[in-house]
């Protein structure tokens, strides 16, 4: 599958300072890609370079294989975005705002505007001035303008900011649906990690303008992790495990024994225990949360 978005060694210098160091990543159709990083890590700068608001010092950004630097107008027509807050013309109505953006792309009909308005649930207030909107309603209008021209790549900076829990859930389900059913590639940046975990298929974590790592949700649950064993008798089981993994940290908790092993090693450990006539009542994989992983990779939330 061809990537929708490719960042090739993208670098940004401002003055003598390098803000983004040779960042490379790819986003594919049908996936929701999370963009994580502490404050000041360079998330927004990277997004600004992807949509052509900021120049790229070296490297390139390709959207559907078209360089944003060489053919901006062609590359950007596949992109819908909200960069930071969805700032709209407050003296215009929601509908006039959408009309404004509709005129900037060929082929967006009045019917399409109505369709998008319905989609984001703004029918009742669309003819009111934007200055009367709540933050959540502006967020919905922001999403509407990003979807107007049926983009294949959607870039959303903090899309759930200002929404209530029901609204967050609604947007999350809708984004997942867009990715799965219509094959959009969606980039989401947020610092609400639990939110991201529920929404995204893969994550890039950046810090100090460098890519620290890219992980998928499945990988996250397959990595070296803790497994909680409920066994009887506990003492005998501990000796067995120590024999197989002499260097392992083992803690015996109230609920059972916690061991740190690879996902793939769980069956063999189970077999070893069973062959020693130990009763295994349960094996529970304690998935490392994205938050733990994030803090582990970035070394705490320091602002560079």
């Amino acid at each position: 599958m061809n990537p929708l978005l490719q960042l090739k060694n993208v670098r940004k210098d401002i003055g003598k300072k390098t803000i983004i160091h040779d960042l490379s990543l790819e986003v594919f159709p049908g996936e929701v890609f999370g963009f994580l990083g502490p404050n000041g890590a360079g998330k927004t700068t990277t997004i600004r370079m992807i949509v052509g608001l900021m120049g790229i010092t070296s490297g390139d950004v390709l959207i559907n294989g078209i360089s944003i630097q060489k053919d901006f107008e062609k590359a950007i027509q596949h992109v819908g975005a909200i960069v930071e807050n969805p700032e709209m013309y407050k003296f215009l109505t929601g509908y006039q705002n959408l009309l404004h953006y509709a005129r900037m792309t060929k082929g967006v009909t009045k019917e399409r505007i109505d369709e998008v308005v319905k989609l984001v649930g703004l029918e009742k207030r669309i003819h009111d001035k934007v200055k009367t909107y709540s933050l959540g309603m502006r967020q919905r209008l922001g999403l509407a303008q990003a979807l107007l021209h049926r983009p294949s790549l959607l870039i959303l900076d903090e899309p759930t900011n200002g929404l209530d829990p029901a609204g967050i859930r609604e947007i999350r389900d809708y984004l997942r649906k867009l990715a799965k059913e219509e094959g959009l590639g969606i980039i989401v940046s947020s610092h609400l990690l639990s939110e991201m975990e529920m929404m995204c298929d893969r994550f890039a974590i950046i810090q100090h303008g460098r890519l620290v790592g890219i992980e998928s949700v499945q990988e996250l649950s397959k990595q070296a992790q803790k497994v909680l064993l409920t066994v009887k008798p506990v003492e005998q089981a501990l000796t067995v495990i120590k024999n197989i993994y002499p260097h392992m940290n083992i803690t015996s908790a109230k609920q059972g024994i916690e061991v740190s092993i690879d996902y793939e090693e769980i069956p063999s450990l189970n077999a070893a225990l069973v062959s020693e006539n130990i009763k295994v009542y349960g094996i529970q994989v304690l998935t490392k949360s994205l938050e733990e992983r994030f803090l582990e990779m970035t070394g705490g939330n320091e602002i560079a």
Partner: protein
Amino acid sequence: MPSILSLIQNENMKIYRRIGTWFMIALLALSTLAGALITKATHKEPKNWKAEVASEIKEMEAQLSEEKVPKMYKNHLEQQLKINEYRLEHNIKPVASNTFWGYLVSSADIIALITLFTIIVAAGSVANEFSWGTIKLLLIRSASRTKILLSKYIAALLFALCMLLLLFVFSSVVGAIVFGIENIREPYLAYQNGTVVEKSMLLHVMQVYALNCVDLVMMTTFAFMISAVFRNHSLAVGLATFALFAGPQITTLLAMKFDWAKYLLFANTDLTQYIDGTPLVEGMTMPFSMMMLLIYFVIFNALTWFIFRKRDIAA
């Protein structure tokens, strides 16, 4: 890729959907009315216009007979003299400010107000997008920055044109009501190739309007540039307004001492100096001023375009 027309349509929507714009239009209408009423209240009708014109002629003849009259001024005096003689001969009253046409000609002074309004609109069309944060959503569409900038510039000039038309309409209506239209057939006397000719008054008014628009276009372009460079509305409006009102005076002062003052923008914006007056610095001609204006115009626009196209949007 959107057509430039739909981009201009967008800019128009952003200009005319704001209350401030309608306030400006109301203010324009009010000033035409106020101007007419003040003129009506203060104008003193000369008892005998023929005697006045005759005494003017005598004065001019006296001036012409002096030795050291500059050549340009001398030409101007001679033309006025011929026109005045023609008036007496053909019994054509000079255009008084309390007549329909006289008022319409003087309404051109209100163009300074339009210039101020257009500066506000032009500076706002770029700077406001930055301060509102809407520039981000505006520049991530398949329209090049050049096209967007051009649409904003054209929309600002269209606003100026619209205001000029309104000024003309307002003044005509107000002038007709306040001063009446008895003198509407009055001709405009011009001096052409050594003879005095009768011309259409309407054409003359249009010419006066057009000459007054030089400032308008140059200052709008200047404000547009400042706004694109500094992204600050107040700064752009302030600088352009200051230049508009103080520029000509500073230039006049400089022109008394230095010859190079003729290369300054404001030495060239008043093109009426070649039609019924004397040039600021001797040796300046209409083509010279046109050339200088063109050079400034190109420099302002090129700078605006260059900076707007290259700028990182971090607002």
